[in-house]
């Protein structure tokens, strides 16, 4: 492992003291971290830990109470549109317009992103996610695995610098998971990826960094290997960190 360089070009995501509450609930409480190109960050934590809320703030969907987010040199609070152009985002459950065909939906996203050649971009995204066989099918008729791939295709259609994937493999069967993992591996070299999950093997397989969040706070910022080394396996370490359960 090389030491982190202070190279601003390579630092793609910089989150400082990100905070958000909904009424009395402190959803995200002072989260800070940064990511460089090539990082695949596993965002771990029990359900309701604030992972999704933190991701929504990085994408500019939600405004933080305070704290800053910089993506590829742009500040979310100042230039949310520039940040959105750099990010590909797969929201939880991969929502998509069910009545549209795969091609129609991806064309819509490509048009919103003002890509120069719509059909070339759509074809490429379809090719990368293996959607060729269903491209003219309406999204609501697709299986869960294909729907997830449509969500991924939409997220990577503009070759984003940063990919934010909220539970990208939730509810998929092992084969479908393997496809998604392979895709993440292919994308990892050129991007910074944040993926939230509560599937611990996933972190071991695809991530080179891991952050454990609970009740809105970062409890651990480390690597999967290091977390495993602590107790011998990731599950025990995870439980130890998030619940204080002795291994």
């Amino acid at each position, binding site marked *: 492992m090389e030491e982190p360089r202070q190279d601003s070009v390579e630092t793609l995501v910089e989150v400082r003291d990100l905070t958000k509450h909904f009424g009395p609930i402190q959803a995200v409480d002072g989260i800070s971290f940064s990511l460089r190109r090539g990082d695949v960050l596993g965002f771990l934590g029990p359900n309701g830990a604030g992972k999704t809320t933190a991701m929504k703030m990085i994408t500019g969907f939600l405004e933080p109470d305070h704290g800053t987010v910089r993506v590829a040199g742009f500040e979310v609070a100042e230039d949310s549109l520039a940040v959105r152009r750099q990010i590909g985002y797969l*929201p939880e459950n991969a929502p*998509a317009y*069910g*009545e549209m065909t795969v091609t129609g939906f991806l064309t819509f996203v490509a*048009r*919103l992103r003002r890509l120069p050649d719509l059909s070339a971009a759509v074809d490429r995204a379809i090719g990368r996610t293996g959607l060729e066989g269903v491209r003219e099918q309406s999204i609501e008729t697709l299986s869960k695995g294909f729907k997830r791939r449509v969500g991924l295709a939409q997220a990577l259609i503009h070759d984003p610098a940063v990919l934010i994937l909220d539970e990208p493999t939730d509810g998929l069967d092992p084969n479908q998971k393997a496809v998604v993992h392979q895709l993440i591996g292919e994308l990892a070299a050129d991007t910074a990826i944040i993926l939230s999950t509560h599937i611990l093997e996933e972190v071991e397989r695809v991530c080179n960094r891991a952050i454990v969040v609970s009740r809105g706070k970062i409890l651990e910022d480390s690597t999967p290997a290091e977390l495993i080394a602590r107790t011998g396996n990731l599950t025990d370490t995870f439980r130890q960190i998030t619940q204080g359960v002795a291994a």
Partner: protein
Amino acid sequence: MRGERFVGLAAVFRRELGSYFSSPLGYIFLVIFLLASGYLTLSRDFGRFLELRQASLDPFFQYIPWLFVVLVPAVAMRLWAEERKSGTVELLLSLPVTLPGAYLGKFLAGWAFLGIALVLTWPVVYQVARLGDPDWGPIFTGYLACGLAAAAFLAVGLFFSALTQNQVVAFILGVAASVVFLLLGLPQSQQTVGQYFGGYTEELVTALSLVDHFSTLTRGLLSLGSVLFFVLFTVGWLLAGMLVLERTKAQ
């Protein structure tokens, strides 16, 4: 933001307008609108178009607001409620769009769809022109009034669509609110308000009455005040809807 206030408008407009025609709902709406407006125009109990023996579209225009009360909320209801229910709002508003851009894109798509519905009423224009020698001024201002009324009711419906995740609730609230604005136009309700609150309240209600401004225009009077009323009414509801969506989008 600097000139980037309505980013995403065109793409959202295109998608939404297309989606009216990719489901049966759009066609069902058009058929119902055309049958109902035709019936109300020709029926002996309502428009009495043929009995009146006048080359005028008054019998047609007269009932349009009452049709819109029920039908426009149906056009508006899914625009935001469905996005929020299915979670696509999170995707849409994380793409490079601004909230006003997406909001107006949807509004204009709904308005264009209603415009298509109005254009499809051309046979009634064709018939008055064939049977008589109509005064074209009121026909022009009448269609303008229909377009403005469509925008006004659509802005109301869109507001309620942004307020709730449930399309049916959005529809019912949209109809209820639109009915209230139409009832303000009845002389009875204006008098009642005048009697209860006295003073200038009767005039105030009359000035706020959608129907009165609508019929000013259908009579052929291109009144700036009436046009302005519809524009301000629409813009007001659009702004309120954007504020609501800003708060409800994350729930």
